[in-house]
């Protein structure tokens, strides 16, 4: 089997926002980023650094001001995306049942509801056996809703999986457990993934590569690589290598809150 190394490639991507009557402001500039299916990538950075916008640029929901996004080297005409939004209340459809929510991407692409529901039920049985397929989203807990959102994201077997702080509204231990769910689902589908987070432990727990997006430098300033084996477990949170990665990221985030006092630091190792 030929191993495809890079499937998502961002080259010199910049996003400039201009409000009327104000000077244009770079949100980020010259971002180069590669995602490979066998490496779980996380993105971490302070609020306002443009994490969500970067995801939306990859998904094609936001047009970059400069630069290009290539998916499979531009050889795939209509790549499909799986996306999990930060706010589950807004992203699921409360008038549809859980299985119809999961089936929606299939139905939108011309499959029958029945086919979509069968796939949805199979996914639910495998990953969320506690959730009744005809429950309404608002009857579930926040974490379950986000996992339903995640199943909807993978029902199409998408080419790229994008997750925008999916568990930021959960309790700490719930969000870690949900993160391990993500790992389980991802390891079965092996798609390139970008997981936006603001929780350092969650990012390190999940990721092979944690990219650091700086608000001060308007771009990606480094990458922290976690080499711990998979599947990851919660015991690893106190592992020395985990803590080492974590400390590097915390240093980065502290320097960001100092508004770039330590500009000479090099985060790449």
């Amino acid at each position, binding site marked *: 089997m030929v191993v495809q190394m890079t499937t998502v490639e961002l080259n010199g991507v910049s996003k400039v926002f201009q409000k009327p009557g104000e000077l244009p402001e770079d949100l980020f500039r010259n971002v180069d980023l590669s995602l490979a299916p066998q490496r779980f990538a996380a993105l971490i950075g302070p609020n306002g650094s443009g994490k969500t916008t970067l995801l939306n640029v990859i998904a094609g929901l936001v047009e970059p001001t400069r630069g290009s996004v290539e998916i499979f080297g531009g050889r795939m005409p209509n790549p499909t*995306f799986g*996306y999990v939004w930060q706010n589950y209340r*807004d992203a699921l459809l409360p008038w549809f049942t859980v299985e119809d929510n999961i089936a929606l991407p299939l139905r*939108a692409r011309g499959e029958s509801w029945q086919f979509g529901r069968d796939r949805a039920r199979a996914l639910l049985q495998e990953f969320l056996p506690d959730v009744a397929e005809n429950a309404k989203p*608002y009857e579930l807990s926040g974490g379950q809703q986000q996992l339903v959102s995640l199943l909807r994201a993978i029902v199409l077997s998408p080419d790229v999986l994008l997750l925008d702080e999916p568990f930021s509204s959960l309790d700490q231990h719930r969000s870690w457990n949900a993160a391990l769910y993500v790992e389980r689902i991802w390891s079965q589908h092996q798609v390139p993934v970008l997981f936006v987070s603001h929780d350092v432990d969650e990012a390190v727990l999940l990721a092979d590569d944690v990219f650091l997006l700086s608000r001060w430098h308007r771009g990606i300033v480094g990458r922290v690589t976690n080499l711990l084996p998979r599947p990851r477990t919660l015991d690893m949170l106190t592992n020395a290598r985990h803590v080492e990665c974590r400390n590097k990221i915390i240093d980065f985030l502290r320097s960001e809150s100092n508004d770039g006092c330590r500009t000479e630091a090099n985060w790449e190792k």
Partner: protein
Amino acid sequence: MVMAGKWYHVWPWLLRILGFGCLAFAWEVAHAFSIFDPTLLPGLSAVAKAFVKLLGSWNTVSDVGMTVVRTLAGFGLAAIAGIPLGIGMGVFRPVYLAAMPPVDFFRSIPVTTLYPVFVLLLGVGDKSKIGMIFTACVFVVMLNSAYGVLQARPTRRQMARLYGCSAPNVLRWVTFYEALPQTLIGLRISLSLSLIVAVLTEMFMGSEYGLGQLLTDAYTTFAIDRLYAIVILTGTIGFIFNRLFVRLETWLVPWSSK
């Protein structure tokens, strides 16, 4: 819950009855002390007797029936026309910009001032009555549906587009439901409005059957007890309409409070 122990949480109906009780007491006091002419404001017992007599008459069934039919006909037509137009206004910006000034103008005209116009164009029959009810309601329905679409949070439409939904599918899987709670608010306001206009047109234009006609008859023949009984009956119908509609709302949009 801490509050569950309070007596007014244990017996909420007690306070609900108390409100009516105060009102009845005030009425009886006004009657007993002749604050108004006692023949013009009769005692509650006399009104109650007239009410029972009103309910016992077969003709009342026809009167209530005709008023309800007119109300629902005008209301239904306003809903059928107003909901798609309102959603169209909300979805297509140019339609909104073009439709808003005339809609804003026409909904500012009290429908009663259009009474002569309706009589001239449609006569004094049911067409005219239902037409006035329709006119009173349709703009309210339209505006609320349009607001429902416009107030929708963008994430769901973004989601639908990302997963490849076509424009018609976004409309029927996302936008329609998104606008539904606000649409139902518009419909509930319209339902009250349509009963008001139905009774009013029956009073002004006259009709064989109808609560408005019944009121005019009682008024012109000086059947004062009966007059109050009809007012109470009409109020009861409006109250039932409203209650049923609230039921319908919680059944149709169980998510809107969550």
